[in-house]
């Protein structure tokens, strides 16, 4: 279960960012922002590293003491970042991948919506509900 989910546009500004409301949201914004550097590094390193790494899923970007940050880049250079709690050790790689998959599918639907202007903030309720489904439920 994610603590924060963010969608970053090609030009590196956020299209959508949502975190668990009980915590300091600014901290998550900052975490996501700093993770962008790691994403860039991973994306540009692919050419020099193994030629087989051609997935959209980037894996664990970096761990902090409380959280782990995962990244995913689409072919149109839109980045998805998910932050999960470190104490949640039962979360496996496959589950993170499937979360990204769902995000990507939902994002594609948003892009195909003729009422959505690419570059605007995402306000789709369907997208919101997909993200709610993967966030920690705040009681």
């Amino acid at each position, binding site marked *: 279960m994610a603590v924060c989910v963010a969608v970053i546009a*090609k030009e590196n500004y956020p299209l959508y960012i949502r975190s668990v409301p009980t915590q300091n949201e600014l901290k998550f914004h900052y975490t996501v922002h700093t993770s962008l550097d790691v994403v860039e590094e991973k994306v540009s390193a*692919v*050419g020099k590293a193994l030629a087989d790494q*051609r*997935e*959209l899923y980037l894996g664990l970007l970096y761990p902090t003491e409380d959280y782990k940050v995962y990244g995913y*880049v*689409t*072919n*149109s*250079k839109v980045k998805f970042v998910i932050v999960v709690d470190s104490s949640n050790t039962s979360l496996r790689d496959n589950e993170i991948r499937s979360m990204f998959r769902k995000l*990507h*599918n939902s*994002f*594609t639907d948003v*892009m*195909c919506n*003729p009422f959505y202007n*690419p570059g605007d903030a995402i306000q789709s309720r369907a997208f919101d509900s997909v993200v709610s489904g993967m966030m920690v439920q705040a009681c």
Partner: protein
Amino acid sequence: MADEALFQFLHNEVIQYVYKSAENGEMENGRCVSKLEHLGFRVGQGLIERFTKDTSRFKDELDVMKFICKDYWTSVFKKQIDNLRTNHQGIYVLQDNKFRLLTQLSSGKQYLEHAPKYSCPVVFGVRLWPGARGTLQPGCEEHRHR
């Protein structure tokens, strides 16, 4: 293949409509072309997002061009690009010998000046990648993407 004819008719009518509904002052290419370009660009963006959802990551420009020439062109126009040339310095020339949206126009020179109007949408939609720009030349049907 009834759906292909349906799309072609609709496509041609949209273009005619945009041109007819332009005020007199706008009859020169400027506004109409950019309206149609924008239309095609937006449609292309959605298409691209859907098609690239399941493909592996593009490593370089060549990957992007291969995707455009094969997968994208096949999905939209049901055939591949006939010829791809490059000068290895960022300019690519794509050639389609039988561009589907124009085959219904006469194959002589009579309507050559109107042809670009009809190819604007959708082709320009593929300009999604950063910095890519395209121009279109009918007659010999060449497209350049940078």
